[in-house]
């Protein structure tokens, strides 16, 4: 029996869990997870699963702040309605090089030891098709939000993720980020054209 796994499951039980994902990097997953969390109707716990870049902590400017640890676990940093959990709160601002075989357990530990009190939990995922997806699917039933840009490569890569989720009977919401920028009165589309459930401009 693995008590940590039970604990991680328990932390997410009965919550509304959203996973912001995209097998492609640099499409705006972190920016958009932050925006989604900030715009939810009640408090949300935002958990940064990108353990190498810890981008969420950087977006909120707390990459060098140690989180408190209480009887209930790692205490999130509070920004408006967002309770933020990041590995940065444990290791601060330093590189985390990690063999693949350790990644699953680090993500599991981060979830298991966090104090998650809110109804909404938003996960910001790293790029790739690896343990971040497997760990989430083993711990909870999440709602996927897939981010892509209009670029051909990104769309093809995201297709893999959609195929995979389809196999798992999950229907994602599609967000197309960096669709266009405004140059004078024109909409310029440097990365190509593609329609999603939501289309966002460059520099929102």
């Amino acid at each position, binding site marked *: 029996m693995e008590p*940590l796994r039970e604990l991680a499951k328990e932390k997410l039980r009965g919550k509304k869990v959203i996973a912001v994902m995209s097998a492609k990097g640099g499409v705006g997953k972190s920016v958009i997870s932050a925006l989604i969390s900030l715009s939810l109707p009640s408090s949300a716990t935002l958990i940064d699963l990108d353990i190498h870049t810890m981008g969420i902590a950087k977006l909120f400017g707390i990459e060098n702040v*140690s989180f408190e640890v209480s009887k209930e676990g790692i205490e999130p940093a509070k920004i408006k309605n967002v309770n933020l959990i990041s590995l940065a709160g444990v290791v601060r601002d330093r590189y985390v090089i990690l063999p693949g075989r350790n990644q699953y357990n*680090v993500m599991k530990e981060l979830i298991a*030891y966090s104090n998650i009190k809110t109804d909404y939990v938003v996960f910001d995922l790293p790029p790739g098709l690896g343990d971040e997806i497997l760990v989430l699917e083993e711990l909870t039933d999440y709602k996927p939000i897939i981010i892509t840009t209009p670029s051909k490569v990104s769309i093809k890569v995201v297709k893999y993720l959609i195929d995979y989720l389809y196999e798992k009977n999950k229907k994602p919401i599609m967000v197309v980020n960096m669709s266009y920028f405004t140059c004078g009165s024109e909409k310029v589309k440097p990365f190509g054209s593609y329609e999603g459930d939501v289309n966002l401009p460059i520099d929102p």
Partner: protein
Amino acid sequence: MHEWSIAYSVVKTLTDNFDKKVLKVTLVLPQFSFLDLEILKEAFDELKKENKVTQDAELKIKIAEPIFKCRNCGKEFKLSDVEKQLNEVRSQYGEEYPLHLMPELFPAFLKCPYCGSHDIEAKGQEIYIESVEVEESGAVTRTS
């Protein structure tokens, strides 16, 4: 402090998996997380009271010594071989230092003492319940 979370996870795992009274549970812990066993036991003894399955359970703790292996040079080493590195991390971060809270981060903080690689493995450094003894007509041991 997260020793309370670990104690809670053990109580929760027991109540979820057993109906009969648990008499004894053996928990294996990684050595280099340097968990505070007194806090852990105190927390367990506090939390176990809340239900019948665990209220009389005794917590037995085993500390698993890591055997590290470097994937770059192939050499094996022990915790004592990286003690200096470990102490530096502890003094830099204080009590709730990264490997205390998240032992699986060890390759990010420790290097092979022979070749300097971070590509190191450690066998058996996960927290797990080794065995559980429940009350039966006679006492029965279940291992998982």
